[in-house]
């Protein structure tokens, strides 16, 4: 049986006497996993723990069956890591920098050189490969970091905010590359991003963290397959009977302040039936939004369930 991509078992991490991750437990089986959460949720700490940079104070974390603490070196031999912050050697030319990193990962000189050139052309920096990395724009530096993460052909690709500082076309190109790599190989992907769209476009499963705890684990593939329809209503005069009647039709309803109601509709129910119930119960529908469940809904729902309605990420 194949090992889960990430397995967290009561994982607790303390830094400077403060508990950052509080007993995370969960199994993520998909090949492309998104990591979401507000600032300070513990995303980077989780990534650093998976890379073996932090030791768990309790519990364990496994990637492809390898314990991040006890099998650190073996695990890191499978990983390509693109950190969030600046990470480069400014005076080195781009291609030499990537070749250097590939050689440290164990590629022989000639192969490292070949792969470095290929990685640079692949990410679209072929023309700039002989320029010192320090002279690159922010977006180009991101691509150079991405190139060094893939040059040695890792089995697990860990990307921390990969599209930070990129303009929309560059962002789109990078997201396409990530998707292409995921589809063209058996690589596993862990992507942490503030941009829900990046995660939605590249990942199959999402781990949402809040205050160092798991707020939600959601399989996006299953969500997409379920293709659930949603109605967001803004109403006046909606009382319990209106909600009860909708629930009687087989809908799931969530009521929010200000007359806002979120309705999950089964396939058998048409929108006109909602209007009919509203007319019967003398409920004014002031606004209606009909759409599929998006990652944003999942994220906001997870934040609300854990008591953070602001939804800032």
């Amino acid at each position, binding site marked *: 049986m194949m090992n889960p991509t990430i397995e967290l078992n009561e994982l607790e991490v303390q*830094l400077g006497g403060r508990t*950052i991750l509080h007993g995370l437990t969960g199994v993520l089986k998909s090949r492309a996993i998104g990591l979401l959460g507000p*600032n*300070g*949720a513990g995303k*980077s*700490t989780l990534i*650093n723990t998976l*890379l073996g*940079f*932090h030791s768990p104070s309790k519990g364990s974390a496994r990637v492809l069956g390898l314990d991040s603490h006890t099998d650190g*070196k*073996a695990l*890191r*031999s499978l*990983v390509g*890591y693109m*950190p*969030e*912050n*600046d*990470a*480069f*050697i*400014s*005076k080195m030319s781009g291609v030499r920098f990537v070749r*250097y*990193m590939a*050689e*440290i*990962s*164990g*590629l*022989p000189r000639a*192969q490292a050189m070949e*792969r470095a*050139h*290929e*990685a640079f*052309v*692949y990410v679209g920096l072929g023309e700039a490969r002989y320029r010192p990395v*320090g002279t690159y724009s922010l977006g180009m530096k991101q691509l150079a970091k991405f190139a*060094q993460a*893939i040059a*040695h*052909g*890792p*089995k697990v690709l*860990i990307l921390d905010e990969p599209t930070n500082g990129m303009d929309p076309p560059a962002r789109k190109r990078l997201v396409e*590359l990530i998707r*292409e*790599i995921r589809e*063209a*190989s*058996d*690589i596993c992907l862990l992507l942490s991003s503030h941009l829900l769209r990046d995660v939605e476009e590249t990942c199959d499963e999402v781990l949402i963290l809040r205050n160092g705890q798991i707020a939600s684990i959601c399989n996006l593939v299953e969500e997409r397959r379920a293709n659930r329809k949603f109605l967001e209503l803004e109403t006046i005069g909606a009382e319990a009977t209106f909600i009860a009647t909708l629930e009687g039709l087989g809908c799931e309803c969530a009521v929010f302040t200000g007359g806002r109601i979120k309705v999950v509709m089964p396939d058998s129910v048409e929108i006109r039936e909602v209007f009919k119930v509203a007319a019967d119960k003398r409920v004014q529908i002031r606004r209606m939004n009909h759409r599929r469940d998006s990652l944003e809904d999942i994220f906001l729902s997870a934040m609300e369930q854990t008591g953070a309605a602001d939804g800032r990420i």
Partner: protein
Amino acid sequence: MAVYKRRYNSYTGSLTAPWSRFFVLTRYAFADLFKSRFFVILLILSLVPTLFFAGYIFIANNKTAQLLMQLRSVSLFSVETPYFLVIMIAQTQAAFLLNCWVGPVLIAGDLTNGALPLFLSRPFSKADYVLGKLAVLGLLLSAVTWIPCLLLFSLQAGLARNGWIWPHLWMIIPIVLCSAIWILMLSLLSLAVSAWVKLRIVATGVIFIIFFVPAGIGEMFNAIMGTYWGRLLNFSDMFRLILINGFREPTGLLGPIGQKQIPVPAAWGVLIFVCLLSLVILKARLRARETVRG
């Protein structure tokens, strides 16, 4: 990831031995160093005294050359223990200057733009990283200390013949051992400074300060307290003490050694303590983790 296909392929080829990967750092560092003209000049200047020492050994062992130069005093050309002590002192000073130029850039360049997580997210430990950087200084400083000294020793042994080598063979041990502790201390100290101070000029200054300011404080302490233990803070002096002791040379070119002398084990202790302190600093400064917010 073939270029013409422009698609990603994972790597399935052979890998280098994990134990040998630290040397990648050394190789790249040397490649960068030799791009600097100043470094090449400094390296050549560090080796120039060796040529003079070699010339001296040649003349000392060549009667014809002595006659041609009209030199009559044979005692002037004695190549014995004090001579090798002088070579060692000259070359270790050259090593110090070379270290002050090379050491400060080795780690600072990686720390300035946060490249360290890239090294440590690979199957590459902190120890591998330090070893790779240490090898740069180790090889470089060896090339100006014990290697030329042993070459001169071999030259003298070859030219002097009539069994000169056998009563002097013991000198190989102090040449290698004293060079080793000096190289280790200089290398670790400059790497620790490089991990702490990012600007080369400041880091070079800090290395000079570490060598000269405590020595001055030590002398002040001696003068005020009427003791000689303040010399423990003079690292160069402690090394010289080890060197003189290693070469069994209580008097001679370096002048007589007074009655009140720091014990040699204490001098070793000071240098080893500096090495350990540098390792502690390196351990604290070389961190892969990034800032944890919130």
